[in-house]
């Protein structure tokens, strides 16, 4: 233990590690660098040949076009994502609490029914949901989107939050009850404030699912309805290859990619914990 001899193989190993590390980072950073670079090129520059990173005639034209294009869709995205978040919190937070810390008959069965729907391929449901939404006049409405997205937001949230609630100290609510709380006030005054960071993290996740979701958004909205930005981006990339203004598209991807990335980085520690199965 005291004399660790450093061998040549150790150096080789270390070198290999760093090479791999930088290689991996490269697969992420190089595309990102191109995306940023391209978003600052004017339309004419796309017909010049050669691969280079620094734009020859930097311009903001792509960004101007992108932002003008995105005003309405972004509003829709924001509305859909935040509404989805609020609705899901109202259901999932108390739900997860009950699953995490209370006993009631049928708990296991209900939990598994929920749990399976976490794994369930949700796209399966686009046909019936589209159909039902048509019938109950939720097609092309913001509320329709809020409700449809609950199908996969809620199981996910409950799964993560239940785990968190379960791991809180055993007697927390009991201590609160001894000192004057009812079961309900114990939840509101003690458990909820403690769980706040996790709850916020999960809210972020719900928001970004609402923001990123494409399939349901595409099925359940049309050009006249609250079509979110993701769907608009998708449509822009369809059936066009020759004369796309890639600069504008890349600017749009940057705008759409930033909010979920920021939220995700906040939420990630909780996600890791929830799936940390040893």
């Amino acid at each position, binding site marked *: 233990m005291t004399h660790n001899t450093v061998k040549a193989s150790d150096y080789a190993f270390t070198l290999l590690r760093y090479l791999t590390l930088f290689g991996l980072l490269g697969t992420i950073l190089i595309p990102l660098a191109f995306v940023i670079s391209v978003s600052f090129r004017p339309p004419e520059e796309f017909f010049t040949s050669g691969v280079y990173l620094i734009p020859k005639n930097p311009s903001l034209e792509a960004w101007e076009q992108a932002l003008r294009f995105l005003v309405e869709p972004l509003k829709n995205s924001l509305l859909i994502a935040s509404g989805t978040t609020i609705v899901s919190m109202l259901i999932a937070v108390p739900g997860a609490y009950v699953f995490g810390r209370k006993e009631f008959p049928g708990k296991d069965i209900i939990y598994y029914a929920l749990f399976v729907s976490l794994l369930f391929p949700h796209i399966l449901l686009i046909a019936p949901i589209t159909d039902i939404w048509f019938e109950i006049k939720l097609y092309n409405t913001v509320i329709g989107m809020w409700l449809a997205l609950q199908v996969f937001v809620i199981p996910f949230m409950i799964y993560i939050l239940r785990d968190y609630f379960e791991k809180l100290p055993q007697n*927390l609510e009991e201590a609160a009850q001894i000192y004057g709380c009812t079961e309900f006030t114990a939840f509101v005054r003690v458990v909820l404030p403690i769980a706040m960071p996790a709850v916020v993290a999960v809210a972020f996740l719900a928001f970004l699912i609402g923001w990123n979701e494409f399939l349901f958004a595409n099925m359940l909205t049309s050009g006249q309805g609250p079509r979110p930005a993701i769907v608009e981006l998708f449509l822009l990339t369809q059936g066009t290859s020759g004369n796309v203004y890639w600069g504008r598209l890349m600017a749009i991807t940057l705008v759409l990619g930033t909010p979920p990335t920021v939220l995700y980085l906040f939420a990630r520690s909780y996600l890791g914990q929830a799936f940390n199965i040893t």
Partner: protein
Amino acid sequence: MPPKAAQETDKQSKSSPSTHVLIEDMRKTFDDGSIVACQDINLSINEDEFVVFVGPSGCGKTTTLRCIAGLEIPDSGHVEIQGREVTHLKPKDRDVAFVFQDITLFPHMTVRQNIQFGLDMKTSLSGSEKEEKVREVAQMLGIEELLDRQPSALSGGQQQRVSLGRAMVMDPSAFLLDEPFSALDANLRDRMRIEVKKLQQKLNKSMIFVTHDQEEAMTLGDKIVVMNDGRIQQIGSPYEIYNEPANHFVAQFIGSPSTNLMPCTLEAGRDGISISSGFFELELPPDLADQINGYEGRVDLGVRPEHLELGEDGIFEADIQVVEPHGSRDAVYLTAGDRELVAVVDAGVIPQDRDTIQVDMDIDKIWLFKESGERLL
């Protein structure tokens, strides 16, 4: 103590009988009755008594305590506090305080907010009154400087002190403590024990303390309730419990090193009654023989390690296995026949390298237990 509140409880207790907490025929089961946590619990606790529930884990002591607190509702029987039937009341309406085994301070509140929590929830005192109470309690516990810290910044001992403070500030009619010090290290545990004992004497409130550590029980309790298998085995002062165990279990559980128990046979011979094990025989003197009313057959003979006398003559010979120093005394581990025995003697009396020794015992200091575990003598 806050004088006003103290007077109030005084008045109440004068009007109520001296019994403060009363449990009658209580029974509690879990999993639809398949697990009996405790049964036939009958107990009365006086106003200023320090009562300790002691027993191995799973003996029902914590369940009993939780039934008093209202965290569990018993299946049958009832609980009274200060003459008031509380069996089915919610915890918050019982006027008791509970200190949990694992530290349950609310991590999102400061120490001050933690202590004040109960006052916020249950009373309508003004801010300054609450502050005054918190300050007094903190002073008593020596945690004034900690008031504005977060629980996570405190040591285990400090956290448990805050838990006590949170209980004390409510000025409850009874304190319930569920193994509050089991998470602390040995030294700190000893200090906290003394503090709690002093505190109880100062507050003059009944305190019910649960522990699995018989030594802790002996040092703390005015009254000790020994439990096993969901039943109360014996209730008594530390001296009674130690010197006059009601049954086999209590004899074995209380005391360290634990009581020597040897299977023997009781036989009525020509000269009276004799006890014989594989390796010794004892005559019961007539006065003791009378007490057992002609019982015959298998018994367990119990004798405390300090009542085994080691020396040059005795009733049997034993091999010395190990001599274990315990400061002023030595524990001597012996084998005789196929039994393992332990004796406690003054330090240094038995040389470390000695192999065998004669063992004697004082016939007045032995106990006999029937096979059912009941005390015979």
